[in-house]
């Protein structure tokens, strides 16, 4: 039943969220923060997972989470102290739990949790005291217990954990203990005789004793007698009190359990007697139920007026629901809503159109709008709508970082190295597509850092470093860019080895002269990666070249900085696509381009002689005593210089870029400063270096957005071994 699958899919999403909360909480607990809120949060998360797993029939997950929850309950109630040992055990249990969830979704085989279960049992048994008690019985018990629960599944009897599927009542009855009923429902078996005397407060808590009688009747029982001697005179009558005791008989074939079940919700102090009527061998009917004259007035039941059921909000059941993450674990106030990504994209497109139309309108009406009131207001309103809608797609990058702690734990276990993790900037917001696509590159870079970067503990100590290595994963937003960095304090890139390998693979000439940076970048050259870097995690060859092309497909680039003996950092620089860019519109040979204003320092109308040629390929501009290199946009774009303004009349725009400081770009003129909507180019085309997208101007024409860093970072034609891809050399 596909509805069930849809609902189960949502359950698995909830599991993912719960796992994230639990991991965060447990990590905090291992670090020493065991405040009640945190423990309660972890408990609730595991509790929810357990609850749903039963409902959806995942017995292995159910069994494990139940055991885990037991321990958490003890810790939550303060009966077991959350020592580091206990917290560490629970963190390891968390990993197994996560594996169970993955197995339940069919993504992986079920984990072997016996060792973990016995570890949990151990902690429960010893109350967290770390002793030498590793009694042999414990593992067997845990195993047997787990096996029991696994086997029971939906069984009705209470098992070792007291799991009873349904209908366990609130209080214990004063009943004879359950007897083994004779299996044969022989006609000679006597009928049941039932006496039910509801207590005085029978109507409290919304209970209705008469419903119990009706239910018994539905099973086949019949009212035989009513004891009315307790009914007081009318004026003393409490309409909500119960004064009558009822007698019924029930067919012999019924089993006692189903009769008892009817009394499940009967208040305490009621008298319930169920027994076999040994004397009669038929059903003796004393009076029909309808003949029983109601002694008590119909109770004034609560005035319940069922309202017409409102149409529940159309929650999307489309295959791709998007969850906006609730804010940090402690805050239960935020509400979330699931949105279909396709609808969001449509909305974004429409809003983009709105901005453009508004811009066209403003242009056309500007001469008429003398007051300059309505148009700017409309513009502001449009901008606000756009900002809000944009922010819907932007999500904290935390999602992309969520797998990192577990990944690192596994890597450390695998390599035997010790690495501490520092995550910075989780709340930096990026477009959803970025989150989806940096997962793999991030994985590869972290893998590299642990495999090749960070040394083993003894090697580190010998080098004067701490035994534990440090891995820092950070996200930062600067202007129209996102910087996602993986940094380690390991041994750095072994340039000699890289150089040798590149020569070996025919990537460079044996005598090629390369700068340190160029050698580092060889790692990303196609064909460089070898079997050494095949990852267990992704299961396929991890080439840094794959990483580079993934990042470039997002319109970004990778920067590598490494220092021998100190460490290495890989930085993914990504544009904030779907963003609004504050831009400077410039003209070159009749074409308009957009320069991100965040990069622009100043613009200069050069005096004669201010721009000088210092070599056949290099020019500089003299600026307040300094010399800033100048690049002609016409050179970079292969535009015929004849169609551009003469250099003497051109403008030089001084821009700043991350690499080497200031550069002057020579253009024809500056047209305007405007906020533009970035339209992605690489939706439909391969990434072109030097372009950070395009925008549609008010008149419908297209202006290309320049990626300043890419334009100036890679050297053009000055002996570099790397041709600027996508740019005319």
């Amino acid at each position, binding site marked *: 039943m596909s509805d069930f699958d849809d609902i189960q899919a949502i*359950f698995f999403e909830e599991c993912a969220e719960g796992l994230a909360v639990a991991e965060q909480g447990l990590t905090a607990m291992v670090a020493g923060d065991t405040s009640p809120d945190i423990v309660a949060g972890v408990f609730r998360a595991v509790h929810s997972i357990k609850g749903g797993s039963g409902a959806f029939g995942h017995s292995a997950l159910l069994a494990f989470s139940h055991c885990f929850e037991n321990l958490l309950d003890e810790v939550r109630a303060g009966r077991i102290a959350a020592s580091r040992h206990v917290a560490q055990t629970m963190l390891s249990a968390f990993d197994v739990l996560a594996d169970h969830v993955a197995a339940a979704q069919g993504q992986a085989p079920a984990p072997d949790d016996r060792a973990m279960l016995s570890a949990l049992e151990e902690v429960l048994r010893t109350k967290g005291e770390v002793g030498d008690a590793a009694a042999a019985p414990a593992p067997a018990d845990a195993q047997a217990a787990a096996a029991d629960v696994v086997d029971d599944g939906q069984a009705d009897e209470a098992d070792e954990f007291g799991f009873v599927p349904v209908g366990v009542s609130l209080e214990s009855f004063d009943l004879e203990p359950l007897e083994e009923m004779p299996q044969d429902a022989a006609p000679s078996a006597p009928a049941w005789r039932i006496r039910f005397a509801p207590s005085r407060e029978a109507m409290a808590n919304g209970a*209705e004793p008469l419903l119990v009688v009706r239910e018994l009747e539905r099973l086949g029982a019949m009212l035989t007698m009513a004891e009315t001697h307790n009914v007081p005179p009318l004026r003393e009558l409490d309409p909500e009190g119960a004064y009558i005791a009822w007698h019924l008989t029930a067919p012999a074939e019924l089993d006692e359990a189903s009769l008892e079940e009817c009394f499940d919700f009967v208040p305490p102090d009621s008298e319930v007697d169920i027994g076999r009527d040994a004397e009669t061998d038929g059903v003796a009917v004393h009076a029909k139920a309808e003949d029983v004259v109601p002694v008590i007035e119909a109770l004034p039941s609560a005035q319940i007026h069922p309202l017409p059921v409102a149409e529940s909000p159309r929650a999307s059941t489309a295959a791709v629901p998007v969850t906006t993450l609730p804010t940090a674990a402690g805050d239960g106030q935020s509400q979330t809503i699931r949105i279909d990504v396709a609808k969001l994209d449509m909305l974004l497109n429409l809003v983009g159109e709105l901005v453009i139309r508004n811009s066209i309108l403003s242009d056309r009406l500007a001469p008429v709008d003398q007051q300059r009131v309505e148009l700017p207001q409309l513009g502001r309103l449009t901008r606000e709508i756009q900002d809000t809608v944009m922010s819907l797609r932007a999500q904290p990058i935390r999602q992309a970082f969520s797998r990192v702690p577990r990944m690192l734990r596994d890597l450390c276990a695998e390599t035997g190295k010790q690495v501490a993790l520092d995550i910075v900037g989780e709340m930096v917001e990026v477009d959803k597509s970025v989150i989806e696509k940096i997962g793999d590159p991030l994985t590869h870079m972290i893998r590299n850092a642990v495999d090749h970067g960070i040394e083993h503990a003894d090697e580190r100590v010998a080098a004067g470093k701490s035994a534990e290595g440090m891995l820092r994963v950070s996200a930062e937003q600067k202007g129209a860019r996102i910087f996602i960095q993986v940094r380690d304090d390991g041994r750095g890139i072994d340039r000699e080895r890289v150089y040798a390998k590149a020569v070996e693979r025919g990537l460079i000439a044996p005598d090629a002269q390369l700068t340190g940076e160029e050698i580092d970048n060889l790692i990303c050259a196609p064909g460089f990666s070898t079997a050494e870097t095949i990852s267990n995690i992704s299961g396929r060859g991890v080439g840094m070249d794959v990483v580079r092309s993934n990042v470039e497909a997002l319109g970004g680039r990778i920067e590598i900085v490494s220092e021998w003996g100190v460490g290495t950092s890989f930085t993914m620089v990504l544009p904030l696509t779907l963003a609004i860019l504050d831009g400077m519109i410039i003209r070159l040979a009749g074409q308009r381009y957009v320069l991100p204003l965040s990069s622009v320092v100043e613009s200069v109308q050069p005096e004669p002689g201010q721009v000088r040629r210092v070599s056949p390929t290099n020019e500089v501009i003299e600026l307040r005593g300094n010399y800033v290199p100048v690049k002609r946009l016409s050179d970079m774009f292969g535009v015929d210089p004849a169609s551009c303004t003469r250099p003497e009349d051109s403008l030089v725009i001084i821009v700043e870029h991350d690499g080497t400081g200031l550069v002057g770009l020579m253009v024809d003129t500056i047209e305007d400063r405007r906020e533009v909507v970035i339209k992605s180019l690489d939706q439909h085309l391969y990434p072109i270096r030097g372009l950070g997208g395009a925008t549609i101007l008010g008149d419908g024409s297209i202006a290309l957005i320049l990626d300043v860093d890419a334009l100036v970072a890679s050297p053009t034609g000055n002996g570099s071994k790397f041709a600027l891809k996508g740019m005319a050399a």
Partner: protein
Amino acid sequence: MSKLILTVDDSASMRMLLKATLSAQGFRIETANDGNHGLERMQEVKPDLLITDINMPVMDGFQLIEEVRKVPDFRGTPILVLSTEFAEDKKARARSAGATGWITKPFDAERLASAIRRVCP
């Protein structure tokens, strides 16, 4: 006119599962995702029966039951707790808060329906 049940649970998948199960049994269902919300919905839809979980953020099941019972209109409304827990002290606490009955998860659809019939006229 079929009975209207308000179910309160902080797990969306559980709410949906309950709704699907109970609708198939012929009940009309409204849902709420935590105690606070549940209280509001009680006032809005005035159901014939309230089914609530215990472990919820902001306002847990016990508190919800107590708050509901404070409202005169709802003093006689049947309230069932639906929870994975089964400890006696929890059940006693629910009872004193004013719950009519307690059902342990995982539940069987038929038996849940008959339990509802037992409390809901």
